[in-house]
C-alpha cells in the first residue's frame, strides 16, 4: 500500500512540476467547455448566419414576400440572384456559388410558388429546390427546417388575411340578405352562393389552424397530412462526390495533423536525449537546423497524404484535377509544417508538447469546421477559423477532388495555407530556445 501511494504521489508531483502539461490538463478542458458552451448558447440567437443564395424564378408577390422573409431571418444571410439572364443560367450560377463554398446552399423558388402560397388547397404544396453542399449535411437539415418555418408563416399569413376576408364575406352576405327589393335579390343570388361557400371554407381553414398551430404540417381532413412545402434536394457535383470524396479530405487532414504532432515531439525528444546539442554544435544556423526538422515533417505529412489519396482512389474517388490536387497537397503540407514548428517550440517536455499539441489541434479542428458545422458557431468564432489550416486544407483538397475549382479559386485556400506555414516557421525559429539547459 505504501508503495502504491508513493508511486501515485510521485506521478502527481511530476505532473505538477511540468507546468505546461499541468496547465493543459486542467486548463484546457475548461477552455474547451467554455468554447463549446458559447457555441451552444449562441445556438439560434447569437449564432452566425448561414450563407445561402436564393433564386426567384416565380417573380410573384408571394415569392417576393417569401424571399423577403428569408432575408429578414437572423439565421440566414441571403444573397439573391435574379433570373434576367435566363432560368437555367441563374440556377447554374447559384449552384456555382455553392460549389465554390461561397454559400452553403442554393434555394430556387420555381415558377408557380406564389400561386401555391395563395391557394394551398388547390395547387398543392409550395415547392422549393435546394442544392446543397454535400460536405455540409448538418447545415442542410437545419436549412430545411428554417425554410419550412418561413413557408408556414407565409401560409399562416394567408390564413390571417382570411379573417378579414371572412368578415368581408359575412358583411356582403348580410347586406344581400337585408335587401328587400326582390329584383335586386335575384340578381345578387349567385354572389350570395359564392360568399356563402367562401365563408364555409374560411371557417374550415381557421379551425384547422387553431387545431395545430405549432406543427408546420397542416391537417386537411382527418388522418391526412399535407406538407406545406415540398423540397427537391440535390447535392452539387453529386456525380463526382461519392461519400468517400467527402470523408477523405477530413481523414487526410487528421493524418497531416498527427504527422506534424509526431515531428513536433521529436524536437523535444532530441532536446531531452541531448542529440539536439550535437546539431547545435555543428556549424549550422538555427534556421538550417529547424529547416531540417520542417522538411522531415513535410515529408512525413506528404507520405500520409499520398497513402490516403491512393486509398481514396481505391474507393472510387477521382480527383477533378490531378495537378490541382498536387497543389492542394503541397500547400496542406506547408500549412501543417507551420503548425508543427509552433508546437515544437511551445513546450519543453514531451508531455507538454503532446498536451498542447492535441488541444491546439482540437481547437483548430473546431474553429476550422471539421468537428461541427461552422454555421452553428457565433460569428467571431467563425472568423477565428481563418487561422485554422484545417478548414483551408479541407477546402483546397475538396476543391481539387470534386468541387472543380479553377486555379484562381485555389489561390485563396492555398495562399492561406502557405501563409500559415511561413508564419509558423518564422515564429518557430524566433522562439526556438537555443540554450542547452534541459528543463
Amino acid at each position: 500500500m505504501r508503495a502504491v501511494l508513493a508511486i501515485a504521489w510521485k506521478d502527481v508531483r511530476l505532473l505538477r512540476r511540468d507546468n505546461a502539461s499541468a496547465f493543459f490538463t486542467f486548463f484546457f478542458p475548461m477552455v474547451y467547455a467554455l468554447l463549446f458552451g458559447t457555441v451552444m448558447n449562441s445556438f439560434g440567437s447569437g449564432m452566425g448566419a448561414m450563407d445561402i443564395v436564393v433564386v426567384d424564378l416565380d417573380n410573384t408577390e408571394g415569392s417576393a414576400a417569401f424571399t423577403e422573409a428569408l432575408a429578414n431571418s437572423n439565421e440566414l444571410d441571403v444573397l439573391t440572384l435574379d433570373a434576367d439572364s435566363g432560368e437555367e443560367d441563374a440556377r447554374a450560377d447559384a449552384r456555382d456559388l455553392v460549389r465554390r463554398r461561397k454559400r452553403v446552399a442554393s434555394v430556387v423558388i420555381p415558377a408557380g410558388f406564389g400561386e401555391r402560397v395563395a391557394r394551398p388547397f388547390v395547387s398543392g404544396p409550395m415547392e422549393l429546390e435546394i442544392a446543397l453542399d454535400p460536405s455540409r449535411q448538418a447545415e442542410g437539415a437545419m436549412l430545411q427546417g428554417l425554410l419550412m418555418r418561413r413557408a408556414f408563416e407565409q401560409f399562416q399569413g394567408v390564413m390571417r388575411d382570411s379573417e378579414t376576408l371572412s368578415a368581408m364575406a359575412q358583411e356582403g352576405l348580410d347586406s344581400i340578405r337585408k335587401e328587400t327589393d326582390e329584383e335586386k335579390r335575384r340578381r345578387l343570388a349567385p354572389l350570395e352562393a359564392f360568399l356563402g361557400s367562401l365563408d364555409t371554407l374560411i371557417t374550415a381553414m381557421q379551425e384547422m389552424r387553431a387545431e395545430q398551430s405549432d406543427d408546420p404540417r397542416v391537417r386537411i381532413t382527418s388522418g391526412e397530412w399535407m406538407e406545406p412545402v415540398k423540397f427537391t434536394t440535390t447535392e452539387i457535383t453529386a456525380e463526382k462526390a461519392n461519400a468517400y470524396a467527402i470523408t477523405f479530405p477530413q481523414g487526410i487532414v487528421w493524418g497531416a495533423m498527427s504527422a506534424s504532432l509526431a515531428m513536433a515531439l521529436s524536437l523535444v525528444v532530441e532536446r531531452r536525449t541531448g542529440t539536439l546539442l550535437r546539431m547545435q554544435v555543428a556549424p549550422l544556423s538555427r534556421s538550417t537546423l529547424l529547416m531540417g526538422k520542417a522538411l522531415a515533417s513535410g515529408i512525413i505529412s506528404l507520405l500520409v497524404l499520398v497513402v490516403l489519396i491512393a486509398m481514396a482512389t481505391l474507393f472510387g474517388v477521382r480527383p477533378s484535377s490531378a495537378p490541382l490536387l498536387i497543389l492542394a497537397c503541397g500547400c496542406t503540407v506547408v500549412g501543417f509544417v507551420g503548425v508543427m514548428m509552433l508546437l515544437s517550440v511551445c513546450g519543453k517536455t514531451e508531455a507538454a508538447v503532446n498536451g498542447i499539441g492535441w488541444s491546439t489541434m482540437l481547437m483548430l479542428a473546431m474553429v476550422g469546421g471539421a468537428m461541427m458545422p461552422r454555421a452553428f458557431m457565433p460569428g467571431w468564432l467563425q472568423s477565428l477559423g481563418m487561422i485554422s489550416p484545417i478548414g483551408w486544407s479541407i477546402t483546397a483538397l475538396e476543391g481539387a477532388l470534386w468541387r472543380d475549382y479553377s486555379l484562381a479559386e485555389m489561390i485563396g485556400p492555398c495562399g492561406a495555407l502557405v501563409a500559415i506555414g511561413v508564419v509558423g516557421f518564422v515564429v518557430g525559429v524566433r522562439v526556438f530556445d537555443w540554450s542547452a539547459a534541459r528543463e
Partner: protein
Amino acid sequence: MIALTEVTKRFGAVTAVEALTLKIKRGEIFGLLGPNGAGKSTTIAMAVGLLKPDSGRVDLAGKGPPTDPEARRCVGLAPQALALYDELTATENLGLLASLYGMSRAEAVRRASELLNLVGLSERASARAKTYSGGMKRRLNLAAAMVHDPDVLLLDEPTAGVDPQSRHSILELIRGLRDRGKTVVYTTHYMEEAQRVCDRVAIMDHGRVLALGTVDALLREHGGKMTVHATNGAGERRVETDDPIAEIRSLLESGGATELRVERPNLESVFLGLTGRRLRD
C-alpha cells in the same frame, strides 16, 4: 586557441561560473579539474555556444564567438551526458554527424569506420547504439566529437564509467591527438589521470579557478611536502618532510618500522591544500 574572458553564468541563485578567464594554447592537453558542481560542464557549454554567458567573451581560434557557425567548425564536443541516436547504428550516428559538417556520403562512411576503429568499436559498428554498454556508448560519444577532425576537442568526462583498459586506450588516444597537433580540453574527477596526460590543468571550485599551471608547478606550489608513512607494532606514523631519505633514515634508527611508504604530493593534495577539502568528499 580558446579564450574565455571574464565569463559568468548564473542559473537563478546559483552562480555556476564566475568571472572565469582561461586561455588555452594550441596543441596542449588542458585539464579542467574540480568536484561535482564546480562549473566544468557549464564552462565547456559556454565555450561551444550551447550556453550564452551572462557576461564575458568567448573566442574560438581567433574566429570569433561560438555563436558564429563557422567558428564552431573548429571544435568538437563530447558532452558529459551521452548524446547519441539510440535507434541508429554506430556508423549511422557518425555518418549523420559527418553530413552535418558537409562531408560526402563516401567520405562519411570512410571516416566513420576509421573512428570506430580508433575507439575499438569496429566489431559493433552496425549494431544500434541502444544495444551498447555504458562504456561503449562513452567511446562512441567520443568518436562523435572527432568526426570532422576538429583542431580543438572539448571532452567532458570522456573516461566516466569506462573500464581501466578502455580508459587506458582513451588516454592514449588523447595523447595521440596532441601528437597530431590537436588541442584538447578535458574535464575529469580522476586526478591521477590528469596528472598522467595533461600539460596544464586548472583546478576549479564554485565556478572559479583556484589554481592554474603545469602539473609540476602546481605540485610544487600547492602540493605541500612529501609524506612518509611508517608502520610498526604501535601503529602508523605520518611525517611530512622535504627530505624523505633523511626522514626514513632517522625513523629506522629510532626504533624500526615494519613498513615504510613515501607519498608524493599529487593533484589531490593540491586541491586539499587549496580548499581544505578532499576532492570527493
